[in-house]
């Protein structure tokens, strides 16, 4: 983060905790689904979607979250947004507990907004583009005329000429344009944190690059903080300052982007990186780094949840769950191999 960004942030009158306080702290977050035994559930099928997740997001940074389907990355985003309630865990925004008397939900949601993957499903088909963007500000008390003026201003910022686009309905514009509208809507309440959940995944590659550039421009312009969730490792690497790798509801590894991509310490991160196509016709991937699909989060494996697919797994791994171990430089890996004291047989060799 450059100094002027820090200066700009500390000048933000909404900054209550000061630049050193993380914008978002998530502690011990747990969400299990299906406990009560619904119509179709057999016995006590519990989906451990998010199972003890801790992380922080500093002011002005981008935290990337990667992982495969069922790892809990989208559930984590929805828990932060309070779209669903956590079973256990604490979410602090700028040092204040979300939902407490200090920071009620209305105030919190004004400061945190989200952009979803499906640009069409996340827009009301019966609202025009300008009404969609103006909706939030109007709910929060802005008069219609001022809200529409803000919508037009935001349309211009996301590269859509208001004269052409303001009166259109979602089905009248392309996917890339719709996602720009979603981003404009996300910014309409002047939030401090924007959660982007696979926000560019459905876009064509040539449009994806445009939207990524736009997001970086808007981040600088509005002094935003991003949580950027994607399954595309290249895109996460490009966007993120720090990266969190999730596996079956747990944090496998978290740290600075260069460290995660340059020297991953968790075998799952290594496998994910090695699974990326090589882009070199003379040096194609010859062997899949891991076999099988990610296990079902309904009955996750004991001990380290990755041990069923890990080539380094031993009896220790299936017995004891490795706590996150700090390997230095704010880089944590939940693997017995990362911790020299863990007693993993490979460390003795």
């Amino acid at each position, binding site marked *: 983060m450059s100094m002027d960004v820090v200066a700009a942030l500390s000048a933000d009158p909404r900054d209550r905790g000061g630049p050193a306080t993380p914008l978002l702290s998530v502690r011990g977050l747990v969400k299990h689904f299906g406990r009560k035994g619904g119509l179709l559930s057999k016995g006590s099928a519990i989906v451990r979607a998010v199972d003890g997740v801790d992380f922080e997001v500093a002011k002005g940074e981008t935290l990337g979250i990667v992982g495969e389907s069922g790892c809990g990355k989208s559930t984590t985003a929805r828990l932060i947004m309070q779209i669903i309630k956590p079973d256990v865990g604490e979410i602090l925004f700028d040092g204040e507990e979300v939902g407490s008397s200090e920071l009620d939900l209305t105030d919190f949601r004004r400061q945190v907004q989200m952009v979803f993957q499906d640009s069409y499903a996340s827009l009301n088909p019966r609202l025009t583009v300008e009404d969609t963007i103006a909706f939030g500000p109007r709910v929060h008390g802005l008069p219609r005329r001022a809200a529409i003026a803000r919508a037009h201003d935001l349309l211009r910022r996301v590269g859509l000429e208001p004269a052409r686009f303001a009166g259109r309905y979602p089905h009248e514009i392309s996917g890339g344009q719709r996602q720009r509208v979603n981003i404009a809507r996300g910014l309409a309440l002047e939030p401090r944190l924007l959660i982007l959940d696979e926000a560019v995944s459905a876009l064509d590659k*040539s449009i994806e*690059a445009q939207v990524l550039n736009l997001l970086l421009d808007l981040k600088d312009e509005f002094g935003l903080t991003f949580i950027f969730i994607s399954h595309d490792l290249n895109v996460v690497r*490009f*966007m993120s300052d720090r990266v969190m790798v999730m596996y079956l509801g747990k944090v496998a590894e978290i740290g600075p982007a260069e460290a995660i991509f340059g020297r991953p310490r968790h075998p799952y991160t290594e496998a994910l990186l090695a*699974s990326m*196509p090589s882009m070199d016709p*003379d040096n194609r*991937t010859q062997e899949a780094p891991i076999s099988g699909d*990610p296990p079902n989060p309904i009955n996750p494996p004991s001990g380290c949840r990755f041990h069923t697919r890990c080539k380094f797994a031993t009896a220790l791994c299936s017995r004891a769950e490795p706590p996150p171990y700090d390997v230095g430089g704010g880089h944590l890996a939940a693997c017995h191999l990362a911790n020299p004291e863990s007693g993993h047989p490979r460390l003795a060799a």
Partner: protein
Amino acid sequence: MTAPIVNVKGLTVDFGTRASKLRAVAGVDLTLAKGETLALLGESGSGKSVTLRALMRLHPRSAKIGGSITVDGRDVLTMPAGELGRYRGGIVSMVFQDPGLAFDPVYRVGDQIAEAVVRHMGGSFRDGRARALELFERVRIPSPERRLDNYPHEMSGGMRQRAMIALALACRPKVLLADEPTTALDATVQIQVLLLLRELQRELGLAVIFVTHDIGVAVEVADRIAVMYGGRIVELGPCAEVIRGPAHPYTQGLLASRAGHAIAKGARLVAIPGSPPDLANLPPGCAFAPRCNQAIEACRKSIPGPVVVEPGHFACCLRAEPAASSTSRAQALPQSAVG
């Protein structure tokens, strides 16, 4: 050189009514040699999947298909219904993007494969089940006997796609059409399925047309890459040449806009401006001209023909540099382009 197993000439596919007409494929020529893998690379609306489906005649009756398609010596477009039934699955078969939708949800996967085997190759249902088991082992589904009795929803995404591949190979086709077969899969599973397809292709000597929007996936599997834009192939050549020396500005743009690791923190991507073309309202000249930073006046007037930039590698672009030895345009193409 033996005759190509797939030969497509001047393929056009039109959808729509009299009120609104849409040309999804606007003149595609391609050949595929036995045992060759060709990737059709393009974005949504580029015509890649429509081209693939035309090879199986999967389009609704209302779609108008022009040009000619010859596969293994058979004229696909004039084939009567009975022969078409034998052709689909017997000569050419297809793997779809979403294996969850391609299987019938109310029958066991093993029975679905057995049914196809009995229908095409005769024999008893028991023989069909035996063939299904053989195929499940071939695509390396763990505990295959047990998995044959699974319903599609009881399998994970990766396993369903393996089962889909088993079904596609059940009647020993010569050509496999793969429509984004790994797009819906997780990264660690995608690479497993790509490697499986590559191995099967090699061992069974299959000719494969692989449709994808992901350059990285194309590079992992393809001998040759055909880049599609606005219903046409705009560049075609051997995989390595297209990746290292892209000749069409669209291919160049796609490669340049990739978010790779070589980009400095805070830098911006080199994005292609504008949006993909509206197929109902294509410009008169090159469909990419409105987004192209190298376009000249002539680009907007007529549709550029193929320019050979290297033997077996052409780009439909007026700005492409012809190969030094060949001054000709559109000669000996694309038949000579078998890699």
